[in-house]
Protein backbone atom coordinates (compact mmCIF):
# COMPACT_ATOMS: atom_id res chain seq x y z
CA UNK A 1 0.00 0.00 0.00
CA UNK A 2 2.73 2.41 1.01
CA UNK A 3 5.95 3.00 -0.83
CA UNK A 4 7.84 4.60 2.08
CA UNK A 5 9.81 1.52 3.05
CA UNK A 6 13.24 3.06 2.56
CA UNK A 7 13.96 3.71 6.27
CA UNK A 8 14.13 0.54 8.32
CA UNK A 9 12.80 0.90 11.86
CA UNK A 10 15.36 1.45 14.60
CA UNK A 11 15.87 -1.47 16.92
CA UNK A 12 14.73 -0.87 20.48
CA UNK A 13 17.31 0.42 22.94
CA UNK A 14 16.93 -2.87 24.77
CA UNK A 15 18.29 -4.80 21.77
CA UNK A 16 21.28 -2.51 21.65
CA UNK A 17 21.87 -3.07 25.35
CA UNK A 18 21.69 -6.81 24.76
CA UNK A 19 24.17 -6.51 21.94
CA UNK A 20 26.52 -4.42 24.06
CA UNK A 21 26.50 -7.10 26.72
CA UNK A 22 26.79 -10.02 24.33
CA UNK A 23 23.36 -11.36 25.15
CA UNK A 24 22.06 -11.66 21.59
CA UNK A 25 22.11 -14.92 19.60
CA UNK A 26 24.48 -14.77 16.64
CA UNK A 27 21.81 -14.38 13.95
CA UNK A 28 20.09 -11.49 15.73
CA UNK A 29 23.44 -9.87 16.44
CA UNK A 30 24.34 -10.07 12.75
CA UNK A 31 21.04 -8.52 11.69
CA UNK A 32 21.54 -5.72 14.17
CA UNK A 33 25.11 -5.15 12.97
CA UNK A 34 23.76 -4.74 9.45
CA UNK A 35 21.46 -2.00 10.66
CA UNK A 36 24.22 -0.36 12.65
CA UNK A 37 26.37 -0.11 9.55
CA UNK A 38 23.88 2.39 8.13
CA UNK A 39 22.60 4.10 11.25
CA UNK A 40 24.73 6.68 13.05
CA UNK A 41 22.19 7.23 15.84
CA UNK A 42 22.10 3.57 16.85
CA UNK A 43 25.87 3.31 16.53
CA UNK A 44 26.24 6.20 18.90
CA UNK A 45 23.76 4.63 21.35
CA UNK A 46 25.69 1.38 21.27
CA UNK A 47 28.97 3.20 21.84
CA UNK A 48 27.47 4.96 24.85
CA UNK A 49 26.19 1.69 26.27
CA UNK A 50 29.60 0.08 25.97
CA UNK A 51 31.31 3.06 27.43
CA UNK A 52 29.03 3.48 30.42
CA UNK A 53 29.28 -0.24 31.17
CA UNK A 54 33.07 -0.04 31.02
CA UNK A 55 33.06 2.97 33.35
CA UNK A 56 30.85 1.19 35.89
CA UNK A 57 32.67 -2.14 35.70
CA UNK A 58 36.08 -0.52 36.19
CA UNK A 59 34.93 1.53 39.18
CA UNK A 60 37.03 0.59 42.19
CA UNK A 61 36.63 3.92 43.91
CA UNK A 62 36.55 4.01 47.68
CA UNK A 63 34.16 5.89 49.90
CA UNK A 64 35.86 8.06 52.50
CA UNK A 65 35.38 6.80 56.06
CA UNK A 66 32.49 8.56 57.76
CA UNK A 67 34.68 10.24 60.38
CA UNK A 68 36.80 11.71 57.59
CA UNK A 69 33.70 13.08 55.87
CA UNK A 70 32.40 14.48 59.14
CA UNK A 71 35.64 16.28 59.80
CA UNK A 72 35.36 17.97 56.40
CA UNK A 73 31.73 18.87 57.08
CA UNK A 74 32.86 20.77 60.16
CA UNK A 75 35.05 23.02 58.03
CA UNK A 76 32.07 25.01 56.91
CA UNK A 77 30.82 26.27 60.29
CA UNK A 78 34.41 27.29 60.95
CA UNK A 79 34.34 29.35 57.81
CA UNK A 80 31.12 31.04 58.85
CA UNK A 81 32.56 31.76 62.30
CA UNK A 82 35.76 33.18 60.88
CA UNK A 83 33.81 35.39 58.50
CA UNK A 84 31.58 36.62 61.31
CA UNK A 85 34.56 37.37 63.54
CA UNK A 86 36.27 39.32 60.79
CA UNK A 87 33.10 41.28 60.15
CA UNK A 88 32.66 42.00 63.86
CA UNK A 89 36.19 43.29 64.27
CA UNK A 90 35.72 45.43 61.19
CA UNK A 91 38.92 44.20 59.66
CA UNK A 92 38.91 44.79 55.93
CA UNK A 93 39.94 41.45 54.53
CA UNK A 94 40.16 42.66 50.98
CA UNK A 95 43.27 44.36 49.75
CA UNK A 96 45.45 43.19 52.56
CA UNK A 97 47.80 40.34 52.01
CA UNK A 98 47.64 38.01 54.94
CA UNK A 99 50.95 36.97 56.43
CA UNK A 100 51.39 33.40 57.55
CA UNK A 101 54.32 32.42 59.72
CA UNK A 102 55.56 28.99 58.81
CA UNK A 103 56.48 26.37 61.37
CA UNK A 104 59.31 23.91 60.90
CA UNK A 105 57.96 20.43 60.36
CA UNK A 106 61.01 18.51 59.36
CA UNK A 107 64.76 19.03 59.29
CA UNK A 108 66.98 16.47 57.63
CA UNK A 109 69.89 17.92 59.60
CA UNK A 110 68.21 17.10 62.88
CA UNK A 111 66.90 13.61 62.23
CA UNK A 112 70.12 11.79 61.42
CA UNK A 113 71.89 13.46 64.33
CA UNK A 114 69.21 12.44 66.77
CA UNK A 115 69.20 8.91 65.48
CA UNK A 116 72.94 8.75 65.08
CA UNK A 117 72.53 8.08 61.39
CA UNK A 118 74.09 9.26 58.21
CA UNK A 119 76.81 11.74 59.03
CA UNK A 120 77.28 13.04 55.54
CA UNK A 121 77.05 9.76 53.66
CA UNK A 122 76.68 9.79 49.91
CA UNK A 123 76.71 12.62 47.42
CA UNK A 124 73.28 13.84 48.53
CA UNK A 125 74.31 13.82 52.15
CA UNK A 126 75.69 17.33 51.96
CA UNK A 127 72.33 18.81 51.25
CA UNK A 128 70.07 19.76 54.08
CA UNK A 129 66.33 19.78 53.66
CA UNK A 130 63.80 21.59 55.77
CA UNK A 131 60.04 21.43 55.47
CA UNK A 132 57.82 24.17 56.82
CA UNK A 133 54.08 24.51 56.84
CA UNK A 134 51.88 27.50 57.23
CA UNK A 135 48.18 26.94 56.93
CA UNK A 136 47.55 25.46 53.53
CA UNK A 137 51.08 26.12 52.36
CA UNK A 138 54.12 23.98 52.52
CA UNK A 139 57.62 25.22 51.90
CA UNK A 140 60.61 23.08 51.20
CA UNK A 141 63.99 24.69 51.73
CA UNK A 142 67.23 23.10 50.59
CA UNK A 143 70.63 24.25 51.77
CA UNK A 144 73.44 23.12 49.55
CA UNK A 145 77.11 23.94 49.99
CA UNK A 146 78.12 26.53 47.45
CA UNK A 147 80.68 29.12 46.69
CA UNK A 148 81.67 30.57 50.06
CA UNK A 149 78.48 29.63 51.86
CA UNK A 150 75.23 27.79 51.33
CA UNK A 151 72.88 28.04 48.39
CA UNK A 152 69.33 28.56 49.61
CA UNK A 153 66.71 27.10 47.28
CA UNK A 154 63.35 25.46 47.49
CA UNK A 155 59.75 25.44 46.53
CA UNK A 156 56.44 26.59 47.91
CA UNK A 157 53.32 24.49 47.43
CA UNK A 158 49.80 25.58 48.18
CA UNK A 159 46.58 27.06 46.88
CA UNK A 160 47.82 30.00 44.86
CA UNK A 161 51.40 28.86 44.50
CA UNK A 162 51.10 28.95 40.75
CA UNK A 163 54.41 30.49 39.86
CA UNK A 164 53.44 34.11 40.29
CA UNK A 165 55.27 35.81 43.10
CA UNK A 166 58.57 36.72 44.63
CA UNK A 167 60.88 35.22 47.22
CA UNK A 168 62.83 37.56 49.45
CA UNK A 169 65.73 36.61 51.68
CA UNK A 170 66.69 38.99 54.47
CA UNK A 171 69.90 38.40 56.38
CA UNK A 172 73.32 39.63 57.42
CA UNK A 173 74.50 40.55 53.91
CA UNK A 174 71.27 42.42 53.18
CA UNK A 175 68.22 41.63 51.15
CA UNK A 176 68.04 39.54 47.98
CA UNK A 177 65.00 38.95 45.84
CA UNK A 178 64.25 36.20 43.37
CA UNK A 179 61.20 35.58 41.22
CA UNK A 180 59.37 32.30 41.65
CA UNK A 181 59.69 29.83 38.79
CA UNK A 182 56.55 28.46 37.09
CA UNK A 183 56.67 25.62 39.61
CA UNK A 184 56.95 28.15 42.42
CA UNK A 185 60.58 27.31 43.04
CA UNK A 186 63.11 29.83 44.26
CA UNK A 187 66.89 29.90 44.42
CA UNK A 188 69.34 32.33 45.94
CA UNK A 189 73.09 32.36 45.41
CA UNK A 190 75.34 31.12 48.22
CA UNK A 191 74.82 32.98 51.48
CA UNK A 192 77.18 33.40 54.40
CA UNK A 193 76.37 32.08 57.86
CA UNK A 194 73.64 33.76 59.83
CA UNK A 195 70.00 33.90 60.64
CA UNK A 196 67.71 34.75 57.75
CA UNK A 197 64.11 35.55 57.14
CA UNK A 198 62.58 34.08 54.00
CA UNK A 199 59.44 35.75 52.66
CA UNK A 200 57.39 34.16 49.91
CA UNK A 201 54.98 36.63 48.40
CA UNK A 202 52.12 34.96 46.57
CA UNK A 203 48.95 36.38 45.11
CA UNK A 204 46.86 36.22 48.26
CA UNK A 205 49.30 35.69 51.10
CA UNK A 206 52.81 36.15 52.25
CA UNK A 207 54.45 33.14 53.86
CA UNK A 208 57.23 34.00 56.31
CA UNK A 209 59.97 31.72 57.57
CA UNK A 210 61.82 33.28 60.46
CA UNK A 211 65.12 32.16 61.91
CA UNK A 212 66.35 30.20 58.93
CA UNK A 213 69.88 29.33 60.01
CA UNK A 214 72.63 29.11 57.47
CA UNK A 215 75.41 27.15 59.19
CA UNK A 216 78.74 28.76 59.92
CA UNK A 217 80.90 25.76 59.23
CA UNK A 218 81.16 24.17 55.86
CA UNK A 219 79.43 20.90 55.25
CA UNK A 220 80.26 18.09 57.63
CA UNK A 221 81.77 14.80 56.65
CA UNK A 222 84.27 13.93 53.98
CA UNK A 223 83.72 17.08 52.01
CA UNK A 224 86.30 19.38 50.52
CA UNK A 225 88.09 20.08 53.73
Amino acid at each position, binding site marked *: VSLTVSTPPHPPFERLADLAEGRLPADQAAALQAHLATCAACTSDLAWLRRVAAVMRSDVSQAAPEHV*VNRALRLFPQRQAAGAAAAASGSPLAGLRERLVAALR*FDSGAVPLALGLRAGG*GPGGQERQLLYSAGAYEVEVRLTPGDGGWVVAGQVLGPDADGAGTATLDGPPGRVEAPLSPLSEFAFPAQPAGSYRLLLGLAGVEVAIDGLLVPADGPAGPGPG
Partner: protein
Amino acid sequence: VGVVTEAPQQEADGVEPSDSDLVLACRRGDAGAWERLVRRFERLVYTVPRRAGLGEEQAADVFQQVFALLVEHLDGLSQPDRVRAWLVTTARRESWRVGRREALIRATTAGASAGSEADGAGAGNEVTLLDLPGDDSPADEALLRLEEQHLVRTALGTLDGRCRTLLALLFYCPEPPPYSEVAATLGLPTGSIGPTRARCLQKLRQRLRQLDPTALEDVSPERKGALSVRAPR
Protein backbone atom coordinates in the same frame (compact mmCIF):
# COMPACT_ATOMS: atom_id res chain seq x y z
CA VAL B 1 29.52 -2.17 46.09
CA GLY B 2 28.04 0.66 48.02
CA VAL B 3 25.82 2.15 45.39
CA VAL B 4 22.71 0.51 46.69
CA THR B 5 22.85 1.33 50.35
CA GLU B 6 24.74 4.57 50.21
CA ALA B 7 22.92 6.29 47.47
CA PRO B 8 21.89 9.30 49.33
CA GLN B 9 19.25 11.80 49.86
CA GLN B 10 16.79 11.73 47.10
CA GLU B 11 15.05 8.58 46.43
CA ALA B 12 12.91 9.68 43.57
CA ASP B 13 13.07 11.81 40.54
CA GLY B 14 14.01 14.97 42.37
CA VAL B 15 16.13 17.40 40.43
CA GLU B 16 19.67 17.34 41.74
CA PRO B 17 21.25 20.75 42.15
CA SER B 18 24.17 21.18 39.80
CA ASP B 19 27.74 21.49 41.08
CA SER B 20 27.55 25.16 40.34
CA ASP B 21 24.28 25.54 42.28
CA LEU B 22 25.92 23.99 45.31
CA VAL B 23 28.97 26.22 45.16
CA LEU B 24 26.82 29.32 44.85
CA ALA B 25 24.63 28.20 47.76
CA CYS B 26 27.75 27.63 49.87
CA ARG B 27 28.86 31.16 49.10
CA ARG B 28 25.59 32.38 50.53
CA GLY B 29 26.41 30.49 53.72
CA ASP B 30 24.13 27.50 53.17
CA ALA B 31 25.57 24.76 55.38
CA GLY B 32 23.23 22.18 53.86
CA ALA B 33 24.73 22.87 50.45
CA TRP B 34 28.20 22.33 51.88
CA GLU B 35 27.16 18.97 53.21
CA ARG B 36 25.74 17.94 49.85
CA LEU B 37 28.85 19.17 48.09
CA VAL B 38 31.15 17.20 50.39
CA ARG B 39 29.00 14.08 50.12
CA ARG B 40 28.77 14.37 46.36
CA PHE B 41 32.53 14.46 45.97
CA GLU B 42 33.78 12.51 48.99
CA ARG B 43 34.42 9.31 47.06
CA LEU B 44 36.21 11.08 44.23
CA VAL B 45 38.41 13.16 46.53
CA TYR B 46 39.27 10.16 48.71
CA THR B 47 39.97 7.84 45.80
CA VAL B 48 42.58 10.09 44.18
CA PRO B 49 45.14 9.73 47.02
CA ARG B 50 44.28 6.05 47.52
CA ARG B 51 44.90 5.34 43.85
CA ALA B 52 48.12 7.28 44.16
CA GLY B 53 49.29 4.68 46.62
CA LEU B 54 48.79 6.62 49.83
CA GLY B 55 47.60 4.88 52.97
CA GLU B 56 44.30 5.55 54.66
CA GLU B 57 45.75 8.04 57.09
CA GLN B 58 47.54 10.04 54.42
CA ALA B 59 44.47 9.91 52.19
CA ALA B 60 42.43 11.31 55.08
CA ASP B 61 44.97 14.14 55.40
CA VAL B 62 44.71 14.89 51.71
CA PHE B 63 40.92 14.78 51.93
CA GLN B 64 40.76 17.26 54.77
CA GLN B 65 43.28 19.54 53.11
CA VAL B 66 41.40 19.57 49.80
CA PHE B 67 38.12 20.55 51.42
CA ALA B 68 39.85 23.10 53.64
CA LEU B 69 41.23 24.67 50.48
CA LEU B 70 37.80 24.56 48.90
CA VAL B 71 36.25 26.38 51.86
CA GLU B 72 38.99 28.95 51.55
CA HIS B 73 38.49 29.36 47.82
CA LEU B 74 34.72 29.18 47.58
CA ASP B 75 34.47 32.86 46.84
CA GLY B 76 37.41 32.87 44.50
CA LEU B 77 36.45 30.02 42.16
CA SER B 78 35.99 31.79 38.87
CA GLN B 79 34.08 28.88 37.33
CA PRO B 80 31.87 27.26 39.97
CA ASP B 81 30.67 24.71 37.41
CA ARG B 82 34.27 23.45 37.17
CA VAL B 83 34.53 22.61 40.85
CA ARG B 84 34.86 18.91 40.04
CA ALA B 85 37.98 19.49 37.97
CA TRP B 86 39.28 21.86 40.64
CA LEU B 87 38.83 19.20 43.31
CA VAL B 88 40.56 16.53 41.25
CA THR B 89 43.48 18.77 40.41
CA THR B 90 43.82 19.86 44.01
CA ALA B 91 43.54 16.30 45.32
CA ARG B 92 46.19 15.20 42.89
CA ARG B 93 48.54 17.97 43.88
CA GLU B 94 47.99 17.41 47.59
CA SER B 95 48.52 13.66 47.14
CA TRP B 96 51.75 14.31 45.36
CA ARG B 97 52.85 16.64 48.10
CA VAL B 98 51.95 14.29 50.96
CA GLY B 99 53.45 11.32 49.13
CA ARG B 100 56.64 13.18 48.53
CA ARG B 101 56.87 14.31 52.12
CA GLU B 102 56.35 10.78 53.40
CA ALA B 103 58.93 9.43 51.00
CA LEU B 104 61.39 12.11 51.96
CA ILE B 105 61.00 11.41 55.66
CA ARG B 106 61.33 7.68 55.08
CA ALA B 107 64.34 8.13 52.87
CA THR B 108 66.06 10.36 55.36
CA THR B 109 65.41 8.26 58.41
CA ALA B 110 66.44 5.16 56.49
CA GLY B 111 69.45 6.95 55.11
CA ALA B 112 72.06 4.94 56.97
CA SER B 113 71.14 1.65 55.39
CA ALA B 114 70.02 2.86 51.99
CA GLY B 115 73.14 4.87 51.36
CA SER B 116 73.36 7.38 48.58
CA GLU B 117 70.04 6.52 46.98
CA ALA B 118 68.24 7.85 49.99
CA ASP B 119 68.42 11.49 49.06
CA GLY B 120 65.72 13.67 47.63
CA ALA B 121 66.10 12.42 44.10
CA GLY B 122 64.81 8.99 44.93
CA ALA B 123 62.01 10.24 47.09
CA GLY B 124 59.53 10.84 44.31
CA ASN B 125 59.44 7.31 43.01
CA GLU B 126 56.79 6.23 45.44
CA VAL B 127 54.00 8.22 43.92
CA THR B 128 53.18 6.65 40.63
CA LEU B 129 49.71 7.74 39.59
CA LEU B 130 50.49 11.38 40.09
CA ASP B 131 53.86 11.90 38.53
CA LEU B 132 54.65 15.59 38.54
CA PRO B 133 52.23 18.44 38.90
CA GLY B 134 51.13 19.89 35.59
CA ASP B 135 52.41 17.18 33.31
CA ASP B 136 50.24 15.30 30.87
CA SER B 137 51.05 11.76 31.77
CA PRO B 138 48.92 8.62 31.94
CA ALA B 139 47.82 10.05 35.28
CA ASP B 140 45.57 12.45 33.42
CA GLU B 141 43.81 9.57 31.72
CA ALA B 142 43.36 7.81 35.05
CA LEU B 143 41.97 10.94 36.66
CA LEU B 144 39.60 11.46 33.76
CA ARG B 145 38.32 7.97 34.30
CA LEU B 146 37.81 8.68 38.01
CA GLU B 147 35.77 11.74 37.08
CA GLU B 148 33.61 9.68 34.76
CA GLN B 149 33.06 7.10 37.46
CA HIS B 150 32.08 9.88 39.81
CA LEU B 151 29.57 11.27 37.33
CA VAL B 152 27.97 7.91 36.64
CA ARG B 153 27.65 7.19 40.36
CA THR B 154 26.18 10.62 40.98
CA ALA B 155 23.67 10.12 38.18
CA LEU B 156 22.86 6.68 39.50
CA GLY B 157 22.20 8.15 42.93
CA THR B 158 19.38 10.24 41.50
CA LEU B 159 17.51 7.25 40.08
CA ASP B 160 14.76 5.39 41.89
CA GLY B 161 15.67 2.53 44.20
CA ARG B 162 14.79 -0.22 41.76
CA CYS B 163 17.00 1.15 39.00
CA ARG B 164 19.83 1.73 41.46
CA THR B 165 19.69 -1.82 42.75
CA LEU B 166 19.33 -3.32 39.31
CA LEU B 167 22.23 -1.43 37.75
CA ALA B 168 24.39 -1.99 40.83
CA LEU B 169 23.83 -5.74 40.61
CA LEU B 170 24.46 -5.86 36.88
CA PHE B 171 27.36 -3.45 36.56
CA TYR B 172 29.09 -2.94 39.90
CA CYS B 173 29.34 -6.56 41.00
CA PRO B 174 32.57 -8.25 40.00
CA GLU B 175 30.50 -11.33 39.10
CA PRO B 176 27.11 -10.12 37.92
CA PRO B 177 24.39 -12.60 38.95
CA PRO B 178 22.13 -14.16 36.30
CA TYR B 179 18.86 -12.42 35.47
CA SER B 180 16.91 -15.04 37.42
CA GLU B 181 18.71 -14.11 40.62
CA VAL B 182 18.41 -10.41 39.95
CA ALA B 183 14.70 -10.94 39.38
CA ALA B 184 14.36 -12.77 42.69
CA THR B 185 16.18 -10.00 44.53
CA LEU B 186 13.93 -7.34 43.06
CA GLY B 187 10.74 -9.37 43.19
CA LEU B 188 10.22 -9.06 39.45
CA PRO B 189 9.55 -11.64 36.75
CA THR B 190 12.76 -12.74 35.06
CA GLY B 191 11.45 -11.61 31.69
CA SER B 192 11.15 -8.03 32.83
CA ILE B 193 14.81 -7.63 33.81
CA GLY B 194 16.03 -6.98 30.27
CA PRO B 195 13.49 -4.24 29.50
CA THR B 196 13.80 -2.72 32.98
CA ARG B 197 17.57 -2.60 32.65
CA ALA B 198 17.24 -0.84 29.30
CA ARG B 199 14.87 1.72 30.74
CA CYS B 200 17.11 2.34 33.74
CA LEU B 201 20.09 2.84 31.45
CA GLN B 202 18.14 5.37 29.43
CA LYS B 203 17.22 7.26 32.58
CA LEU B 204 20.82 7.11 33.64
CA ARG B 205 21.87 8.65 30.37
CA GLN B 206 19.34 11.42 30.74
CA ARG B 207 20.56 12.23 34.27
CA LEU B 208 24.16 12.16 33.12
CA ARG B 209 23.35 14.68 30.43
CA GLN B 210 21.78 16.91 33.03
CA LEU B 211 24.87 16.68 35.20
CA ASP B 212 27.32 17.16 32.38
CA PRO B 213 26.12 17.37 28.79
CA THR B 214 29.41 16.15 27.38
CA ALA B 215 30.05 13.30 29.81
CA LEU B 216 30.57 9.97 28.07
CA GLU B 217 28.96 11.27 24.92
CA ASP B 218 31.85 12.16 22.68
CA VAL B 219 33.06 8.88 21.38
CA SER B 220 35.94 9.39 19.06
CA PRO B 221 37.44 6.20 17.64
CA GLU B 222 40.67 6.14 19.62
CA ARG B 223 38.86 6.98 22.83
CA LYS B 224 36.40 4.22 22.27
CA GLY B 225 39.25 1.79 21.80
CA ALA B 226 40.83 2.79 25.06
CA LEU B 227 37.65 2.57 27.05
CA SER B 228 36.00 -0.54 25.71
CA VAL B 229 38.69 -2.89 26.92
CA ARG B 230 36.37 -4.62 29.33
CA ALA B 231 33.21 -4.31 27.30
CA PRO B 232 31.80 -7.59 26.03
CA ARG B 233 32.18 -8.14 22.35
